[in-house]
């Protein structure tokens, strides 16, 4: 079977597909989250050293992973948008930015509330926390640049360049921060030194990660639909979609 993928590069044909996919992934996210939360909050036993506080891991780790993955996805669509001058790819990059920023913010927030009972502080200049904070700033920079440019096509390309510069810098920032941290205070506080994880906890973590993936896909597809309608509001198909008669 040959699928003409370029057909879906057109907003007109992508819009209904995005709607179906968003509903599907949204439903999957709800199912995975229900199972994952049940495993995490009910089935998984209390941790020997951290008590019940460790259960934040089921939110914290998936959001931290998604914060990085969504940035890479945003950079990917930005590269496609620049390379192929594809409008829809730029819209995808635009739609991914707020979701990624949300994931980074959730990771930091949940991390702070995990840190309080286990490390005794809301914030430590841990390498991962610091690099996630800088990642959040990079997301906010992309969103702010978008807001500062009136013309959408120009904003597309400027944000694409910024996202690509950012994606080159993300690993550099990560390793520099990690190195800086080890130089200063040693690894007295480390997530990697946590005790070996029980099987049920790992299962809960994986299911919650699947939920986070599905949520991010559903949320960004829903947002891209809104962006399509907003940008193409002058076109006939959008007018007929939202039930406004077009003047001939």
């Amino acid at each position, binding site marked *: 079977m040959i699928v003409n993928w370029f057909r879906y590069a057109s907003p007109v044909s992508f819009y209904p597909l995005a709607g179906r996919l968003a509903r599907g992934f949204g439903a999957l996210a709800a199912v995975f989250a229900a199972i994952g939360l049940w495993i995490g909050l009910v089935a998984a036993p209390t941790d020997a050293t951290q008590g019940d506080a460790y259960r934040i891991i089921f939110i914290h780790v998936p959001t931290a992973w998604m914060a990085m993955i969504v940035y890479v996805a945003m950079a990917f669509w930005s590269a496609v948008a620049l390379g192929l001058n594809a409008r829809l790819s730029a819209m995808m990059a635009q739609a991914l930015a707020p979701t990624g920023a949300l994931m980074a913010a959730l990771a930091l927030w949940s991390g702070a509330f995990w840190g309080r009972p286990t490390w005794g502080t809301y914030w430590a200049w841990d390498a991962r926390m610091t690099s996630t904070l800088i990642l959040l700033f990079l997301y906010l920079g992309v969103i702010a*640049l978008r807001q500062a440019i009136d013309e959408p096509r120009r904003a597309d390309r400027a944000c694409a360049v*910024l996202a690509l510069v950012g994606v080159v810098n993300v690993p550099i920032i990560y390793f520099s921060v990690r190195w800086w941290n080890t130089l200063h205070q040693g690894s007295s506080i480390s997530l990697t030194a946590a005790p070996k994880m029980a099987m049920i906890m790992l299962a809960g973590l994986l299911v919650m990660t699947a939920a986070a993936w599905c949520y991010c896909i559903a949320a960004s597809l829903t947002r891209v639909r809104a962006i399509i309608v907003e940008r193409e509001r002058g076109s006939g198909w959008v007018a007929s979609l939202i039930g406004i008669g077009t003047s001939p």
Partner: protein
Amino acid sequence: MTSASRLSAAVAGTSGVEPPSVGGAVVFALRRDLRVALRSRAELGVELLFYVIVVSLFPLAASPSRAVLSTLGPGVLWTSALLASLLALPRLFAADFADGTLEQMALARGPLAAYASGKMLAHWLTTGLPVAVLAPLLGAQYALDGVALALLAASLLIGTPILSLLGAIGAALTLGTRGGGSLLALLVLPLYAPVLIFGAGAVDAARAGLSAAPQLSLLAAGLLLAVVAVPFAVAAAVRIALD
């Protein structure tokens, strides 16, 4: 021939002017920007003064104790260098964008990345280099010893060109946008983080009696990467702004 007429001749390809080579384009933009900068020496002085004042404020905020100051010193001197570089960034493209020079450079037969390289080099010579020269003097006020001061100057000499290069991407992307200055800070400062870490880290290592070679090597590696890659990103960003 004036520089303006030489540029427009390069655009039109007339009057027997050869298309500029890459080196020629770099030197042209470098000389032009240096001349413009030296004609507004007061502005350069104010930028340098900004660095001096910011560095002088930290002891007032923290403590005049020598132990505290020598701990804070490398970070303060480096953070202030970041801010001084940021403050000078709008000068890089804004005026040339407003009066059409940048557009002429984009149309000229020399590569735009080469013109941008010359401008970034001029920017570093007029901001980063004076800061690196001045820093040891200010570092002495922070009770840093001779080795630390030498490493401060060395790390700033290697690190500030990276700031000019990365900053130029932000300066080009924010051309003609709303809320230029604060937006520029939001775009550029997170990208400066690794430079700050390795730069201040080099001085810290010297203070702790360790070798600063790893930090300086990493800074130099970053500089080489930036020199090779950034001009093309800046050229792309300038073309987007000119559209």
